[in-house]
């Protein structure tokens, strides 16, 4: 029925325990039985002795009264006809009989008119008794052994079937649950505690499966919400950029319109035609470029939305910053703020260009909005040795660092720790969504980095984005890349784990 697997250890223990107890009980019972039989046998012997003594005593007393003592005693001696039974006359009044090794002895007092005249002693050889004892012992031991073996077989079968098997099945089931397999309900036919346990286990598995499904859908929902939040922030940014972009389009549109009218009204001299055509084409290209930049920014994210996992790629941060600044330049000009960018060395990271651009855009917009008066927003890109702050799980080492420094009003120390909270904003209604910094922080954390902020009231704020540098490129990549990144291989490696 059962294989002797480790799962029947419990069954084995049960069997051994029951067996020991059974042997103990059976032995005690056998011992008591043998002792009882021996006592009964001894009682029988004594009863026989008493019968012998009684028949002799009346004869002795009668002869004794006739003063024929010697004759009486002879009769006693003659009565011992059997080898195995001896009768003896004792004149003195002796104590209780003592069984010696080979004989069982009984003593009976003989009295005439109340005066004891002597004692009649009956002795019987014990060989018969011994044989009986041996036989009785052998029988008892044999029957006990047979009983034990039969009981053992029944117990083993019952234990393995009702304990060992369900336990093994339960253990296998638990192991499967532990490995995350919640399917395949456990079917135990028995209607006992094990059956109930199996039923409860199945119910538990169903609940776990339900919980797992709920968690999965919740996680999915949360990720979806996060993505929507980012998209909302992006759209808000696009909206704010759009007016600047529209403004930018005014000039080239004006040129194209005026030139076109000249053609229309026949004011163009034949010699000027090709020149005017070139000017119109250039202006249109310029407009296309402006619009493409804006679309590029708004589209990247939408593309990411549709994909389960937007792909990461090597991103040249300096190029990305330059591209982003071009996009935001109109807004900066409107606020009379100059944007300067210092990128001392080419820095590459591994990530989503659209998301990282969103972060840069958010930080620069934030800086612009912090500046109430004309001034400069300074962007600096480089590499830095950095140690992550508490709560950020990332290794210490070399990071790509982009700082965005404004000369704005600064942030009060009391609210500085809250600036990355969602919907936390000090801006007027309509100016910001309060999402930018929180979304930015989330994006950078997903890239294995973090954002630091320093601020002095009345002086300005500095946001630093730290990102793990991209791993070394393989030989198939450009030589320039190779030369640059090789210097950083030893530093870059540890970030792979943290950066994901």
């Amino acid at each position, binding site marked *: 029925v059962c294989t002797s697997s480790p799962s029947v250890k419990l069954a084995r223990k049960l069997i051994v325990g029951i067996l020991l107890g059974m042997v103990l009980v059976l032995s005690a019972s056998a011992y008591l039985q043998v002792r009882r039989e021996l006592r009964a046998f001894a009682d029988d012997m004594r009863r026989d002795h008493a019968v012998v003594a009684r028949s002799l005593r009346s004869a002795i007393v009668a002869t004794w009264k006739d003063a024929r003592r010697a004759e009486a005693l002879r009769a006693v001696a003659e009565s011992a006809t059997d080898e195995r039974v001896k009768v003896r006359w004792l004149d003195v009044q002796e104590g209780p009989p003592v069984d010696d090794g080979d004989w069982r002895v009984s003593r009976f007092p003989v009295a005439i008119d109340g005066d004891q005249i002597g004692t009649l002693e009956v002795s019987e050889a014990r060989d018969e008794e011994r044989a009986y004892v041996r036989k009785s012992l052998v029988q008892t031991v044999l029957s006990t052994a047979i009983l034990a073996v039969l009981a053992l077989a029944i117990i083993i079968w019952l234990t393995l079937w009702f304990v060992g098997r369900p336990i093994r099945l339960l253990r296998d089931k638990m192991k499967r649950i532990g490995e995350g397999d919640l399917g395949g309900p456990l079917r135990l036919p028995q209607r006992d505690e094990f059956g109930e346990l199996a039923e409860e286990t199945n119910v538990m598995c169903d609940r776990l499966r339900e919980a797992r499904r709920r968690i999965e859908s919740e996680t999915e929902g949360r990720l979806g919400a996060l993505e929507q939040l980012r998209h909302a922030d992006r759209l808000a940014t696009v909206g704010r950029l759009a007016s600047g972009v529209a403004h930018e389009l*005014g*000039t080239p549109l004006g*040129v194209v319109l*005026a030139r076109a009218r000249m053609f229309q009204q026949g004011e163009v001299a034949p010699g000027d035609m090709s020149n005017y055509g070139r000017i119109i084409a250039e202006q249109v290209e310029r407009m296309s470029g402006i619009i493409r930049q804006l679309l590029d920014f708004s589209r990247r994210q939408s593309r990411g939305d549709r994909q389960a996992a937007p792909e990461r790629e090597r991103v040249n941060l300096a190029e990305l910053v330059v591209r982003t600044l071009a996009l935001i330049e109109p807004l900066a000009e409107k606020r*009379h703020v100059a944007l300067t960018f210092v990128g001392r060395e080419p820095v590459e990271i591994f990530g989503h260009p659209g998301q990282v651009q969103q972060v840069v855009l958010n930080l620069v917009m934030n800086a612009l909005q912090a500046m109430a008066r004309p001034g400069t927003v300074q962007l600096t890109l480089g590499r830095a040795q950095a140690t992550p702050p508490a709560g950020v799980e990332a290794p210490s080492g070399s990071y790509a660092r982009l700082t965005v420094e404004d000369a704005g009003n600064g942030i009060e120390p009391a609210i500085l720790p809250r600036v990355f909270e969602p919907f936390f904003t000090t801006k007027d209604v309509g100016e910001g969504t309060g999402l930018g910094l929180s979304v930015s922080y989330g994006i950078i954390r997903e890239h294995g980095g973090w954002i630091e902020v320093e601020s002095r009231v009345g002086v300005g704020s500095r946001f630093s984005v730290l990102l793990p540098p991209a791993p070394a490129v393989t030989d198939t990549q450009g030589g320039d890349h190779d030369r640059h990144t090789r210097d950083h291989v030893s530093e870059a490696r540890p970030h792979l784990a943290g950066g994901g």
Partner: protein
Amino acid sequence: MIGTHATTSAKPARILLAEDDPELRTLLAEALRRDGHQVMEVGNGLLLDDVIRELAAQGPARPHEIVLSDVRMPGRTGLSVLESHRGSPWCPRFIFMTGFGDEELRAEARELGAVGVIEKPFELDELRGLLRAVAGA
């Protein structure tokens, strides 16, 4: 405005044209000169400010002296130049060219005392009409 073709151009004016985009500046300067105006071109806000100072040294501004300026220019914006000269008798009248979709900026320009705001892109005839209205006032 498209209908009113400017065969009868406005009284000749002295126009100080400030626009950082060379294409548009050249185009406007050409057109305005063809209409008989006297045009001075500057490419940024700082130069605009300098030229206005020089003109002011020659005496108070006259009605036919008009500044036609872009709002956003390197150095200084047209609005900030107007702001620093407004109220003074030597301050010429300003017409601003703004990008479209920026109501805020137009309101600000009018508040500073600009005599006209024209939204890019605009028809040349539209500008001519505006100039006529301003110079004729």
